[in-house]
C-alpha cells in the first residue's frame, strides 16, 4: 500500500491571519478538503482531496485561500516525468485505465497561435463596425448552385433545410447527465437569446427544454439514449455523433449513480443502470451504412431538418469527410483532438487524433478539389478559445465553430479536469441537487450571452480591420492568414503563406 502513496499535486494555503473561521470553504467543498477542528477552533485542509477547482478560493469572503502546485518532486527527468511515474504507480495499484476529463493538457502545438491575422493599410480601407453595418449571420446546410426557374422565369427559392445563426458560433454537444439540468438550461436560454444553437448531446432532451427547440440541435449517438420521433422533430437539426475529438474510436460511459430521476427518464433507461455508448454505431460499419442512417433520420423528420455528422479529427480525415459529404448529410462537424470531454481514458485523450487546424484545412481543401465544398457546411470544434480562433477557423474554411469548454468556463468552470468525479462544485458537471442549485440558469445564461456578444464584437472588429463587412467573405479566405514559425509542410497543409511573404 505505501508504494501507491502519491503526494498531493496541489496544496491548500490558508492565510491564518485573514481566516475568520466562517467555515464557508467547508460548506462549499463537495470533495471535503476543508474541515473544522473543534479542538483548536481552526480550519484544517486535506490537500489530497483538493482538485484545484477554486470554488473555496472564489467563495472565501476573507480572501484567505489560495491553491498552489506542490513543490514536492521526484528526481527531475525529462523522460520519466512526474505524470509518467505516478501513472504507473496508479495503474500498478488499480489494474485499470486512467480516467480523466476535459481537453488534453499535453504540450502539443496549438496552430491557432501560429497563425497571424491581416489588416488593411492604405490600398484598402478598414471598416469601423460601430459606424458601418458588419454582418455575421450564417446559414448552415447544403448549397447547390443550379438555378431553377418556374414558367414565368421566377427563381425557385426552395433550399435544402438550413440552420440560421446570428453569429458563427454554436454550443457543442454536452449531454444531460454529464451536465446538470441547470447547465443545460443556461445553454438553451443563451442560445435562444443569441439566435444561435446549443446541442443536446447524446443523453436526450429534458421535456422542459423542448420549447427551446428552434435553438437546439438534438444528437443521435451510438447509445441512442432518449431518441424517439418527438425528440428528432424537436430540434433545428439532428446530429449523428460518430466520434469525439477527445476520445476518437471509443464510446462513452455515464456511471450508474448519475442515471437517476430525470436523467434516467430523459435517457429512457432504468434508474441506476450504466449508460454505455458503444464505440461504433452498430448499424454503421461503413460509409454506405451512414448514408442509410442519414436518410432514415430525414425520412423521420419529413426532410425538414439538416443532418449533421460529427466526426473526430483522425489521420484520414479528408477522405472520410469526402465520404460524409456524399452521404446526403448537410453539415459535417469536425472535432479536433484538443477538444474536451466529461470523461475519457487519459491515454486515449492524450494520444489519439490530430489538431483541428490541420484537419479543417485539409478537409476544406479536399472538398474544394473535388468540387463538393458546396454540398456540405463545416463546423469546426476542438479547442476554440477566443474570438481570434473563430476568425482563424473561418478563414481556414469553416462555416461556423463549436465551443464547449469556453461555454463551461463562462458558466463558472475552472477547468479542474474532474468532471468524471461527479462532484462539480460549480454545479455544472454534477447531478447532486445541492451542487446543481449553485448554478442559476439565468446567471449562467447572462454570462454565456456576454461571452458570445463580446466575441462577436471582436470578430467584427477584426473583420473590419481586414476590410471585410460580411462573414461569408472571410470564409476560406486564407490570404488573410500568415503562418509564424511553421515548417513549409505545415504551411502547405494549412494552405497559408509565411509571415513576410
Amino acid at each position: 500500500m505505501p508504494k501507491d502513496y502519491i503526494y498531493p499535486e496541489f496544496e491548500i494555503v490558508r492565510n491564518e491571519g485573514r481566516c475568520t473561521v466562517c467555515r464557508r470553504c467547508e460548506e462549499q467543498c463537495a470533495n471535503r478538503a476543508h474541515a473544522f477542528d473543534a479542538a483548536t477552533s481552526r480550519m484544517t485542509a486535506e490537500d489530497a482531496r483538493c482538485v484545484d477547482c477554486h470554488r473555496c478560493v472564489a467563495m472565501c469572503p476573507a480572501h484567505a485561500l489560495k491553491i498552489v502546485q506542490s513543490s514536492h518532486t521526484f528526481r527531475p527527468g525529462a523522460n520519466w516525468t512526474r505524470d509518467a511515474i505516478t501513472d504507473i504507480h496508479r495503474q500498478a495499484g488499480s489494474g485499470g485505465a486512467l480516467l480523466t476529463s476535459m481537453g488534453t493538457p499535453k504540450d502539443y502545438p496549438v496552430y491557432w497561435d501560429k497563425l497571424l491575422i491581416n489588416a488593411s493599410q492604405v490600398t484598402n480601407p478598414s471598416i469601423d463596425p460601430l459606424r458601418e453595418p458588419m454582418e455575421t449571420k450564417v446559414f448552415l446546410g447544403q448549397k447547390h448552385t443550379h438555378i431553377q426557374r418556374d414558367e414565368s422565369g421566377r427563381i425557385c427559392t426552395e433550399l435544402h433545410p438550413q440552420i440560421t445563426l446570428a453569429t458563427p458560433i454554436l454550443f457543442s454537444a454536452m449531454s444531460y447527465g454529464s451536465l446538470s439540468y441547470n447547465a443545460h438550461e443556461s445553454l438553451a436560454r443563451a442560445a435562444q437569446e443569441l439566435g444561435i444553437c446549443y446541442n443536446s448531446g447524446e443523453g436526450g432532451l429534458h421535456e422542459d427544454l423542448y420549447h427551446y427547440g428552434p435553438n437546439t440541435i438534438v444528437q443521435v449517438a451510438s447509445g441512442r439514449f432518449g431518441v424517439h420521433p418527438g425528440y428528432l422533430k424537436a430540434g433545428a437539426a439532428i446530429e449523428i455523433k460518430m466520434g469525439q475529438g477527445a476520445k476518437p474510436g471509443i464510446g462513452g460511459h455515464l456511471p450508474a449513480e448519475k442515471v437517476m430521476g430525470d436523467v434516467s427518464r430523459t435517457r429512457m433507461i432504468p434508474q441506476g443502470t450504466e449508460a454505455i455508448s458503444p464505440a461504433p454505431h452498430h448499424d454503421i460499419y461503413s460509409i454506405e451504412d451512414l448514408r442509410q442512417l442519414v436518410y432514415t433520420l430525414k425520412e423521420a423528420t419529413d426532410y425538414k431538418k439538416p443532418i449533421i455528422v460529427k466526426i473526430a479529427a483522425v489521420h484520414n480525415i479528408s477522405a472520410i469527410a469526402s465520404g460524409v459529404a456524399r452521404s446526403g448529410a448537410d453539415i459535417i462537424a469536425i472535432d479536433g483532438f484538443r477538444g474536451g470531454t466529461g470523461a475519457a481514458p487519459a491515454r486515449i485523450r492524450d494520444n489519439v487524433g490530430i489538431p483541428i487546424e490541420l484537419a479543417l484545412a485539409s478537409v476544406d481543401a479536399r472538398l474544394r478539389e473535388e468540387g463538393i465544398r458546396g454540398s456540405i457546411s463545416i463546423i469546426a470544434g476542438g479547442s476554440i478559445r477566443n474570438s481570434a480562433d473563430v476568425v482563424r477557423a473561418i478563414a481556414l474554411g469553416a462555416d461556423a465553430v463549436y465551443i464547449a469548454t469556453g461555454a463551461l468556463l463562462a458558466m463558472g468552470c475552472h477547468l479542474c479536469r474532474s468532471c468524471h468525479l461527479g462532484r462539480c462544485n460549480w454545479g455544472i458537471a454534477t447531478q447532486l441537487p445541492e451542487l446543481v442549485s449553485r448554478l442559476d440558469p439565468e446567471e449562467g445564461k447572462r454570462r454565456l450571452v456576454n461571452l458570445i456578444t463580446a466575441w462577436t464584437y471582436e470578430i467584427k472588429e477584426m473583420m473590419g480591420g481586414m476590410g471585410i463587412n460580411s462573414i461569408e467573405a472571410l470564409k476560406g479566405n486564407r490570404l488573410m492568414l500568415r503562418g509564424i514559425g511553421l515548417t513549409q509542410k505545415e504551411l502547405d497543409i494549412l494552405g497559408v503563406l509565411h509571415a513576410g511573404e
Partner: protein
Amino acid sequence: MSIEGQVRIPSGCAITSVFSKSGENISGRLVVDSIATMHERSNGLGGGFAGYGIYPQYKDLYAFHIFYDTLAARQACEAFIDRHFDVVNLSKIPVRKHPNIIDEPLIWRYFLTPLPTKLKDSQLDESEFTKRCVIRINDSIEGAYVFSSGKNMGVFKAVGYPEDVGDFYRLEDYEGYCWTAHGRYPTNTPGWWGGAHPFALLGYSIVHNGEISSYDANRRFIEMYGYRCNLQTDTEVITYIVDFLHRRRGLTLAEVASVIAAPFWTTIATKPAEEREKLTYLRNTFASLLITGPFSILLGFDGGIMALNDRLKLRSMVVGERGDRVYIASEECAIRVMEPDLEKLWAPRGGEPVIVRLNAGAQGR
C-alpha cells in the same frame, strides 16, 4: 521580381467608358482623351481599353488577341489553336512605336470558330468550349496569353500610361458602340503586359478600380467550377464570377449584382416577401461570391455595359447622360472632356447596378 500570377499585386486605378444606346460608331480616340484626364490616378504601370462593335466584318467569329513572349510560344499556341479551331484570319495587331511603350511582346489577332467535330466531341456549347480552350492556353502554354476572346469586341492593353497605350494601339482606327478604359496604379512592379486591364473572357470584359478583401474566398470558390485564377488579380476573379453567374447559371445582370454586391440583411428584411425570399436565396446560395472591400467595376458585355460599386461605395464612380450616350467614369472630369454639356449627372449608390443596353434594332448587335 515576381510577375503577376506569381504574386498578388493590389492596385488603385482610374476607369472610364462611353456607350451609344443607338449603336452609333464612336472612335476609340474619345475614350483615350477621357482616360488621359485622370493621368494622376495611374502610375505608368498599366493601361488598357475594350471596344465593342469594332469587328463588324467578323462579328460571328471569336477574336483572340494573344501576347507571346517567344516565337516558340507562338508556334505551340498556334498548333493548339489549329487543333481546336478553324482560323479564318490571322495577323499581327497593328501598332505604332511609342517612346513610352517598351518591351512589347509579340501581339497577334485571330478570327476563329471552333472546329465542328471537336465541338461535337466535347459535348459542350460553343462558348463553354471556347472558354475552356482559353483557360487551357493561359494555364498550360508557357509564354502565351490570350487577353481577349469575345465576338465583335477586342481588348488592347499594355504596360504604360493609358493614353500612351491608346496611341500605341492606334485606337483612333477603331470604331464601336462601347468603349471602356483603365489606368492602373499597382503597388508593385508587374512589368508584364498580361497583368494590365481590362481583363476579358469571351464577350465579358472588366475594368475595375479597387482592392477587394474577399479575394481568396471568391477565388477558392470559383476555382471549384473549372476556372484558374492565374493572375491573382481582382479583375480576373470578378470576370470569372460574372461568367459563372451570368452565362453558366443564367442569372440576370441585376441578380448577379445582388450576389456580388448583396444588400445588407437589414435591407433585405424591408423588402416585400417575394423579393426578400429571392435575395435571401441568392445571398445564401452564392455566399462565397459576395465581394467585399472597395470596388467600382465596368462590365462590358455583348450589347451592353453594367456599372457597379461595392455596397459601401468605397470608390468614386459617376454617370453622365446626354441623348443616346451614357458616360461612366471614376471622376466627373473624365466625362466632361467627352461631353461638356450633360443632361444628367449622378452618382449611383453602393451596390446599385447601372445597366445600359443597345436599343432594340440598334446596329452593332
